[in-house]
C-alpha cells in the first residue's frame, strides 16, 4: 500500500507517525520503505539516520523524493516494496499533491485546535482536485487525532468527528494518539514506541495506540486493485 502522511500544518507529528508506522510494518515482516518528501526539513531522514546510528533492527530504508517526479518515484518504489510510506512537509507542496494523486490512503495527523482546523479548507481543495483526476479511485482523507491531550475531559475526539463531518471526503480514524513523552524518548533512540524496553504505563499506552492504528490502517487490507481491474 502507498500511504501518504501529510497535511498543510507543521508540527502535527507527521514524521513521527510515518517513522513509527514504517518501523511497525517492518516488525510485522513487511518490506517497507519510507519516503521523505519534505526537502525543507528532512525530519524523517534524520529519524532513520539516528536509528541506523543506534544499530536498531529491523532496518528501515528511507529515500528522499522531491518535485514533479515524486509520483513516478513512488510508483517505481511500489513495484519493489510491500508498503511505501510518504511523509510530506507541513504545507501545500508539489510533493504532497503528487503523492495525493497516486496514494491508496492519506492520513492527516490533526490536533483539532482552532489553528489546525483552519487548514482544513486548503486540505479539502487539494483532496478534491486530486480526486477530480483519480476517476473511480477516489481517495479518502483519514483524520488522525495526534498529540491529543491525555486530559480525560478533552473534547478532541468529538471535535475531530465534527471536523470530518464538516468536510466531506474526510473521515476520522478511531485511534487517537495522545501526547506522550514516550514518543520523544523513542525518537532519541531511533526507535518506534513499540520497541521501547521495559515500558512504563504511559509508554505502554503509546505503544498500544500505535499498534491499534497499525491494525486499523493495515489490518483490514485485503487487496488493492487497479481501477481498471
Amino acid at each position, binding site marked *: 500500500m502507498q500511504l501518504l502522511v501529510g497535511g498543510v500544518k507543521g508540527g502535527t507529528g507527521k514524521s513521527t507517525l510515518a517513522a513509527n508506522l514504517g518501523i511497525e510494518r517492518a516488525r510485522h515482516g513487511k518490506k517497507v520503505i519510507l519516503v521523505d518528501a519534505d526537502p525543507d526539513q528532512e525530519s524523517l531522514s534524520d529519524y532513520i539516520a539516528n536509528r541506523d546510528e543506534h544499530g536498531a533492527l529491523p532496518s528501515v530504508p528511507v529515500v528522499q523524493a522531491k518535485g514533479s517526479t515524486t509520483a513516478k518515484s513512488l510508483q517505481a518504489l511500489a513495484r519493489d516494496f510491500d508498503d511505501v510510506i510518504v511523509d510530506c512537509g507541513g504545507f501545500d*507542496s508539489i510533493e504532497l499533491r503528487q503523492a495525493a494523486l*497516486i496514494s491508496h*490512503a492519506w492520513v492527516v495527523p490533526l490536533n483539532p485546535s482552532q489553528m489546525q482546523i483552519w487548514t482544513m479548507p486548503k486540505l479539502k481543495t487539494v483532496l478534491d482536485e486530486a480526486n477530480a483526476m483519480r476517476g473511480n479511485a477516489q481517495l479518502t482523507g483519514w483524520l488522525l487525532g495526534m498529540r491529543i491531550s491525555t486530559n480525560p475531559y478533552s473534547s478532541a475526539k468529538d471535535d475531530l468527528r465534527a471536523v470530518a463531518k464538516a468536510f466531506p471526503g474526510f473521515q476520522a480514524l478511531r485511534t487517537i494518539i495522545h501526547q506522550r513523552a514516550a514518543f520523544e524518548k523513542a525518537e532519541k533512540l531511533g526507535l518506534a514506541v513499540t520497541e521501547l524496553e521495559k515500558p512504563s504505563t504511559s509508554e505502554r499506552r503509546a505503544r498500544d495506540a500505535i499498534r491499534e492504528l497499525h491494525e486499523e490502517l493495515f489490518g483490514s487490507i485485503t487487496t488493492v486493485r487497479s481501477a481498471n481491474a
Partner: protein
Amino acid sequence: MPKPPLRLTRPARPEARNKQLDLRPALSPEIDLNSPEVQAFSLRGRVIVPPLVEDGRGEGVLASGIQARSPVLAPRLESSERDDPVVDDPWRYAAIKLPALSGRKLSEIADRRCSKRTRVALELLQRPLRELARNHRAGECPPLRRVSAGVSRSGVSLILPQDLADDLRYVVETRGAVKAQVLTRLLVPEIDALYIKEILRRP
C-alpha cells in the same frame, strides 16, 4: 442542589463511536502523470528550490529526483525515472500571483478560446520576455510597468520552455530582480491588451 437520581442503565453511545469505519484503501488510479493537467495541479503546490551550492549552478543534492539517505538500502531506480528535465532546472518553474482583475480577464480569454489559463499565459509571455532578454543583452534595462496586486490575487503556475527559462534567468540575474515580479509585470499588460482584442472588440 438535589442529588441526581441513579441511572440503572448505561448511557447510549454516540452512533459514530460504534460504527465501524469503512477503511478500505483507494484503488490504484490510472493517471497520466505527464499530462498538463497533472503538472498544473502539482505546481499549484509550493516548490522548494534547492539552495545554491559552491559551484554556483544552483543544483544542490536535492536537484535529483530521488536520493538515498539510508546506508541500509539504496533502492534501484531506472535512470529514466530520475532524469526529468523539469526538475533539473528550477528556473522552468514559475508560480505567479496576478491581480484579481487580470486573473479574471485571463480566465475569460482562456474560456473563450476553450483553452487553459496556463497555456494562454505562456503564449503571452513569449514575446515580451524574449524582447526583454534581448534588450538586456544589448546593455539596456527598460522599465517595466508597475503592477498593483491588491489583497485578492489569482495564481498561475507555469512550466517554461527551456529557452524561455534561460532568458528569464538572464534577465533576473542581470537586473537583480525577483522572478515572479518580472513575470507579473510582463504578463499583466499583455493580458489587458489581449482582453481588449479578443473579448471587448469581438463582434
